């Protein structure tokens, strides 16, 4: 069963470089170099705790999403949880 809510692990800093972004994760002290849509997901989460549907709606307000966006977003969130950048509950 998937997690019901997601929150960014704060604090973090994101700096856009060229196609990629560097993210400093305060809780671990680790630096991650990531591609889209990771910075956009973290920005959309902000300081909130959101369900997948709520996060999808927030991203949909700013970006054109594909029909299979929900599955893609779920997969990206699983990766971010594994990295420690997102906390799932």
């Amino acid at each position: 069963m998937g997690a019901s809510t997601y929150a960014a692990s704060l604090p973090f800093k994101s700096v856009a470089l060229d196609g990629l972004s560097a993210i400093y994760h305060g809780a671990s002290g680790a630096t991650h170099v990531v591609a889209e849509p990771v910075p956009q997901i973290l920005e959309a989460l902000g300081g909130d705790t959101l369900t997948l549907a709520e996060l999808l709606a927030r991203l949909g307000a700013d970006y054109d999403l594909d029909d299979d966006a929900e599955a893609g977003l779920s997969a990206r969130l699983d990766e971010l949880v594994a990295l420690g950048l997102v906390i799932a509950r």
Partner: protein
Amino acid sequence: MRHSTTVTIGPRTFRIGSDWRAPVDAVDALYRDYPAPASLIPDYTVRLEAAKFARRLIRPSVAICGDYTLPEAVPQSLAHGLISAEMAMNLQMALGERRFLLLHASSVEKGGKVLIMTGESGSGKSTLSALLASRGWRFMGDEFALIDPLTGDVCPFPRPISLKNEAIGVMRGMLPATRFGPLQADTAKGDICHLIPDDAAIAAMHNPAPPALILFPAYGLPCDIRPVGKSEAFVRLTQASTNYTALGEAGFDALARLVKNVPIGAIDYPDTDTALALVDELWAALP
């Protein structure tokens, strides 16, 4: 420690102590042109001790000790005591420094702006910094570029330049013999000879300047200038830094600022004349 001396290079003061007089005398000779330390309280202490008690007298063997050590460091012959001292000073900075972001890079300044050259051993960054210094640039360092997280500036750390093998002959043909330390032959890195920075570099060793260009030189390849993406440069510079992780958020901020604000490129060169021409070309093209 039976024998000791204290030297200041840029923002850092080192106390170097030894069981033997020779390495301390060699350090004093190499740093004879540097001003006396303003304070005898060192930032770092280096100790060159006998690897074992008997090794103080019989086939003397130097163990590198100090505030920060590497347990697997191999003791060296006393004949290479000066190199041991220089290595130990590098080690203190690499492992202990927290005030500045350290990049394993050389740096030179002209017109108030700094060129940073970083690359692996053999890339030619030391030799190029020495050659540029002989052509009117201010030498700021050949081992570590010290990035100030508060200002983004490069802080000078103009230690004597560690010339290796062919580079020794090239520079000896250009500069007076008084600028060179003793030849240390058959070290782990081949022949090594230190080139003492010129008076202007030493006199300005407390004057930082902003970075204007970062180059990744590579020796032994056909002449080429290649762009380096910001994200690639960011990752390569984290690898070139000895204390990026230890600095945490301050290191991230300093490196992100450097990479975002400063033009970055890679130069491949088959010989030093080509490298100098490439540097001139890229420097002239800066805004």
